[in-house]
């Protein structure tokens, strides 16, 4: 059904592009602004395009942020892989092997989605202090996984429900062990789901601020987001650093959206509608 039944289709495209452009204008501003000097940005009159490109912003920001980009990459990659290693067998086990207590576990996963981050932040801070996990990347990774694990399990369970289980049963009858059936049949058949969930499990730690803020005080261990937050307060806002840094922080997410839009739309809607 459409309001535009009688319009040529290309006109709708133009209208859609205009609407998208308006809604995304804040993003355009940060992109263009990252190449402007603060004087031009906040000089009092609108400039839609830099009068000259201040590439210095970018090279300075990249230099300063390089070790922190590395921290973010390590944390997000390990958290994502760890999340998949734990939740892929678990989602399969819960959906198809029907262990006792699975309903309680699923209900608990949904419940954790309702809890504010602070519920986890304070206990983890206190306990991690005791076991010397504060100010370590493994500590931050474990903390970030408290966000990714419930999310990944809920999403992967939806994918696992679509698995043609007869194939697994056939393999088991043919003498394959449980583990082999899982590795050679279940994993390949749920690969699109695993990729989508894996990418989201990368993006969530990548964008995390609250755990980094409470667990990491040592400068050389701080991830990208925390470093950018720290730059806000010290001596007023250094926009020439903050804007390129903000664009940089958004790059993985934007890349993902552009490359895999179809996957996301399918993945997100599948979880919610079912």
């Amino acid at each position, binding site marked *: 059904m459409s309001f535009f039944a009688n319009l040529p289709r290309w006109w709708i495209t133009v209208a859609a592009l205009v609407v998208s452009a308006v809604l995304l204008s804040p993003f355009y501003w*940060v992109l263009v602004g990252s190449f402007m000097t603060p004087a031009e940005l906040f000089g009092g009159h609108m400039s839609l395009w830099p009068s000259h490109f201040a590439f210095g912003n970018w090279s300075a920001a990249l230099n300063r942020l390089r070790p922190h980009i590395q921290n973010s990459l390590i944390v997000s990659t390990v958290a994502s892989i760890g999340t998949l290693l734990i939740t892929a067998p678990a989602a399969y086990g819960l959906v198809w092997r029907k262990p006792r207590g699975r309903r309680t576990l699923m209900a608990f996963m949904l419940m954790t989605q309702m809890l*504010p981050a*602070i519920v986890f932040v304070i206990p983890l801070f206190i*306990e991690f202090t005791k076991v010397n996990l504060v100010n370590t990347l493994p500590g931050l990774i474990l903390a970030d996984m408290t966000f990714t694990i419930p999310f990944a399990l809920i999403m992967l369970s939806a994918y696992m429900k679509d698995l043609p289980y007869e194939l697994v049963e056939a393999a088991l009858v043919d003498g394959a062990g449980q583990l082999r059936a899982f590795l050679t049949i279940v994993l390949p058949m749920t690969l699109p789901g695993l990729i989508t969930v894996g990418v989201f499990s990368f993006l969530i730690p990548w*964008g995390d601020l609250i755990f980094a803020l409470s667990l990491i005080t040592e400068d050389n261990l701080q991830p990208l987001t925390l470093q950018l937050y720290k730059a806000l307060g010290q001596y007023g806002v250094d926009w020439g650093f*903050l804007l390129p840094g*903000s664009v940089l922080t958004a790059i993985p997410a934007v890349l993902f959206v552009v490359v895999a839009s179809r996957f996301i739309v399918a993945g997100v809607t599948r979880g919610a*509608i079912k």
Partner: protein
Amino acid sequence: MRNNTKSPAAEKTQTVVAEPSRQRPRKARFDTSPYLFILPFVIFCLALLLYPVVYSLTLSFRQATVDTFVSGDMPFNGLTQYQAAVADPVFWRAVINTVLFAFFSILFQFTIGFLLALFFQADFPCKNFCLALLLIPWVSPVLTAANIFKGLFNGTGPVNQICHLIGFGPFPWLAEPAYAFPATIVANIWIGFPFNFILLYAGMRSIPAEVYEAARIDGAHFWKRVTHITLPMLKPVSVAVLTLGTIYTVKVFDLVFVMTGGGPANGTQLLSTYAYQVGFSLLNFGEAAAIATLMVLLVLLLNLVQLLLQRR
């Protein structure tokens, strides 16, 4: 004992006899494999999800401040933390702000998402491209959005520049509570509309075309079809979107923490930022845990209210 007395030969014959029965699953034996699949997950849940939740809840009944934290014993003191929390006017300011923040965010996110979803029911070239672009605010880190809007609402930033062009302002956007609060809501609407859009879009797609066709033949105009077909048939999806929206909005932390830090003068203080401040600036973990528990109760209460309104 019996095994020890067995001769090697007897053992051998036994395994040979056992061989054919391996083909069939033995029902009598308890199958442990489902539990092995979920074992790492269950361990993680117990140690890093359930334990913190229980810990946070018990902490809210303990005195956990700097001195007790260092000495290691945090004595139980009943409801003292809760009493201290609700006695503070800033707490109530944060409650009101959280509710208003959630209400206006969801109202506009849902409306924008609904209109976009309606628009995207048409098929046109480059549709998937536009759809993907519109997801960017939602998938990019909240910190990016917070920094963008901190810049847009800067004293001499683009928002005031546009206001100036049409003859208004300049407004003290992030400097005064009455302006800073709506500014944070605008930023949150920007982050959240794609989520509403994409779920409502998918929900609308699942309404069969024949229903619309029948209404069209009966002479129902576009808006009549929207209000009489789309809205009622979309109800289950809308309920899901609104429930998730409430949960996510009450949890918002990074955005306000980065944009305003809860200020000026607690004007944008939400329960999430307030709890963090009490915990990590005042180092009163017990009271912060109490505020966290009250936040969960608020989410439950808001969802209950929503449920009752939807019943009507």
